């Protein structure tokens, strides 16, 4: 919970900085941070490397928007529909994978295959999704505030707070989850699945739970992302999106609470801080990934936590 203190300055930021650019970069950071946290629950928590979160991300966007469009319901109800669908998909795919006892690498490949299949469906089901042309999202989420009534989230500052509050909520949820007995079971599975099984933990059920929760969170990020950018396209479900999230988690610190957010912050703002030709940017991104794996396996947060501990011991 100490991690949450870091969020306080972010709430005060809009009062100090007027720059729309900074706020925009932070909005993207928050939304992608939510995606990264989702991934961290199933990977950093339960130890399952999944490549499906981009698909959940995309499904979140598409279903929320399509429900709003076809059923004329507000954003949050539309998102509820998306949650139901994502849960259903996660249970089906998770059941297939875990029942067949797919390990590590094969699990990653099969989730990747499924994600690709979903992307191809989004790409080709043109009557529903407008295929590759994507869909323009003109609707906005509405929020009820005491005093102001129902307001539409359209300008940068309202979006900033909506996404920041959402991120805070998800962070608290993930912290509570990982500390609870459910989270501890996840960790047991991650550290040694066979041992966990012998100890009486129903690994199948917990892996399925982790997978589902992760995808639901990813779909939330997707809904926010789609409505913020105002555009939804099949590329949201692509492998690259999954890899981005993985990079964020690794950079920030696997299995830490704040890690995914830190990673999201660094990777989202980096292209704007360093003015490099674009090809170099991708190269730098790759090098960061490599360096993190080889030199900083615990990520930024892990490194920082380690330093703090060492200082505490030294004094």
């Amino acid at each position, binding site marked *: 919970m100490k991690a949450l203190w870091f969020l306080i300055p972010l709430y005060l930021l809009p009062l100090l900085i007027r720059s729309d650019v900074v706020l925009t970069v932070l909005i993207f950071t928050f939304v992608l941070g939510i995606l990264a946290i989702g991934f961290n629950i199933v990977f950093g928590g339960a130890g399952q490397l999944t490549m499906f979160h981009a698909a959940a991300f995309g499904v979140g966007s598409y279903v929320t928007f399509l429900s709003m469009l076809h059923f004329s319901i507000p954003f949050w109800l539309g998102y509820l529909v998306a949650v139901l669908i994502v849960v259903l998909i996660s249970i089906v795919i998770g059941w297939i994978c875990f029942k067949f006892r797919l390990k590590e*690498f*094969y699990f990653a490949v099969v989730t990747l295959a499924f994600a690709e*299949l979903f992307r*191809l469906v989004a790409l080709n089901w043109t009557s529903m999704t407008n295929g590759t042309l994507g869909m323009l999202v003109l609707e906005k989420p509405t929020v009820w505030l005491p005093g102001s009534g129902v307001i539409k989230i359209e300008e940068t500052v309202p979006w900033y707070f909506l996404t920041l509050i959402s991120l805070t909520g998800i962070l608290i949820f993930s912290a509570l989850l990982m500390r609870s007995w459910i989270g501890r079971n996840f960790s047991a599975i991650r550290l040694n699945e066979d041992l966990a099984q012998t100890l009486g933990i129903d690994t199948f059920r917990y892996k399925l739970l982790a997978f589902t929760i992760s995808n639901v969170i990813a779909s939330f990020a997707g809904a926010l992302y789609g409505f913020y950018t105002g555009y939804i396209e099949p590329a949201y479900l692509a492998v690259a999106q999954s890899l981005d999230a993985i*990079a964020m988690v690794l950079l920030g610190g696997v299995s830490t609470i704040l890690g995914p957010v830190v990673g999201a912050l660094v990777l989202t703002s980096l292209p704007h801080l360093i003015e490099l030709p674009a090809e170099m940017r991708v190269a730098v991104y790759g090098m960061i990934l490599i360096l993190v794996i080889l030199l900083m396996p615990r990520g930024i947060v892990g490194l920082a936590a380690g330093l703090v501990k060492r200082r505490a011991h030294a004094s």
Partner: protein
Amino acid sequence: MTQVVVGQILNGIILGSLYGIIALGVTMTFGITGIVNFALGQFMMIGAYATWYFTDLAMFPFPVAVVFAVALAAVAGLIADQALFRFTRNNLVNGLLVSIGLISVMESGALLLFTTTPKNMDIVIAGSWSLGAITLPRMKVVAFLLLVAVIGLTWLGLSRAWLGRATRAYAQNPEAAMLMGVPTKVLQTGVVVYSCALAGFGGALYASLFSLEPSLGGLFILKGVEAAILAGVGNLLGALAGGVILGVTESVGSQPLPSAFRDAYGLVFLVAILLFRPAGLFGGQK
């Protein structure tokens, strides 16, 4: 219609041999170093661009260019191994992530050097052979034969030559092999370098058939990994078979069904195989 299907089966077999050589690299690396080298596609790209460069720009004869290209891919593989993969032996996740990082670096390198504009090598062997209504471009057939030859030689080497037998012994039982004096570090590096050379060779032949873009590595590694898993990771000759099956499924599947879904057919097939025979079609053997 049958002629179309037969034609597509043949096309799928040829394309499959290209997938197969990558699959072979994937499977060898996994068996010996315990990681899946996703960056193999990039070494294929190195081989392809190098071949194009040496043939079209430096004006070497094609076979000479290929030799140089393979050597270049091998050297690159050596550098990658010593600088990176050496530290991720048997750590699947780390190896995966490092390869992804490497992919970004190498792809941007290619972008800087060559830009996204596709490069087309001058045609090496023109013309086609026709058998009835089935036409096969000559270069495709030649490429196929060369790929099968190399894969076959690799398999032979692994079953006859001493280094080959040592490799297989190590794959089956690392500790025992070490006790028997098998130089493991050299072996692991050697396998990484060899698989990169294989990928480079695949790339060289690719360049003679298709246009080159920096992103070609990404497409082929995915297919290579699919093919390797299909056959059973660790099964060497099976890698070729896996590639061929994948190639044929894609080509033939596109006929009755929408071709836009082409990549999906291989995926669906793969998922099905993994669920019912997780060890792969030929798994269990080494």
